């Protein structure tokens, strides 16, 4: 113990100067994509021009957020070893990000549905790559139940 104390370094240096929180979940992207889906539904059901204009603005914002969350997963969460094991992830993220742009510019419910399916495929890889355990904080309510 004395030796450990003696040898303990006196200066601490960091290799990460920005602290990543380490929490990643495709659900973030999915919720934004679900917003797009529902907004398109509401847009189609409405005849209120002002409402429809607002719906478009909000849908575009949400599509952009979905794209951001997919980008973060791709560039920050998925590591070279994940890509090696699940090589499809690169294309999945790339295509999903592009699909976000499509949803942004479209009022076609089918495009929003396609985006949801793509995010679900990313979520599948995230789950297989150990994402839920590696990145999320356990839900206290569920843990007690």
């Amino acid at each position, binding site marked *: 113990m004395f030796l450990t104390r003696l040898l*303990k*370094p006196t200066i601490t*240096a960091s*290799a*990460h100067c920005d602290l990543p929180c380490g929490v990643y979940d495709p659900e973030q992207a999915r919720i934004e994509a679900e917003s797009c889906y529902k907004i398109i539904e509401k847009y189609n059901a409405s005849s209120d021009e002002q409402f429809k204009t607002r719906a478009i603005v909000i849908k575009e914002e949400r599509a952009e957020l979905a794209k951001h969350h997919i980008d973060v997963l791709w560039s*920050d969460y998925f*590591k070279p070893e994940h890509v090696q094991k699940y090589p499809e992830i690169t294309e999945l993220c790339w295509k999903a990000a592009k699909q976000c742009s499509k949803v942004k510019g479209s009022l076609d419910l089918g495009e929003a549905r396609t985006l949801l399916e793509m995010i679900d495929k990313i979520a599948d890889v995230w789950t297989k790559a150990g994402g839920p355990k590696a990145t999320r904080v356990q839900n206290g309510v569920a843990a007690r139940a």
Partner: protein
Amino acid sequence: MEPALWAGDWIVVSGMSRPPRVGEIVLVRDPRKPENLMVKRVSAVADGACTLLGDRLEESTDSRTFGPVPLANVLGRALFRYAPIGRIGWFW
């Protein structure tokens, strides 16, 4: 800086008697916040400054973000890891 350096590694750093060389791991003052000390790998040295990159490019914040670091900020270079025991060894 994984796999070269892991969080919690205990290392010996020597002072700089010469400019750092490409490939060496150096202890530097963060140019954005001098009280922060960082360890990064030297990828280029030119005009009194060195370009530093982390080994995990996709995660690292390094000269791609904060630019080349003046050699005056380089405090030393990593020589030897003495703990944990299983990973004791020199850095070259």
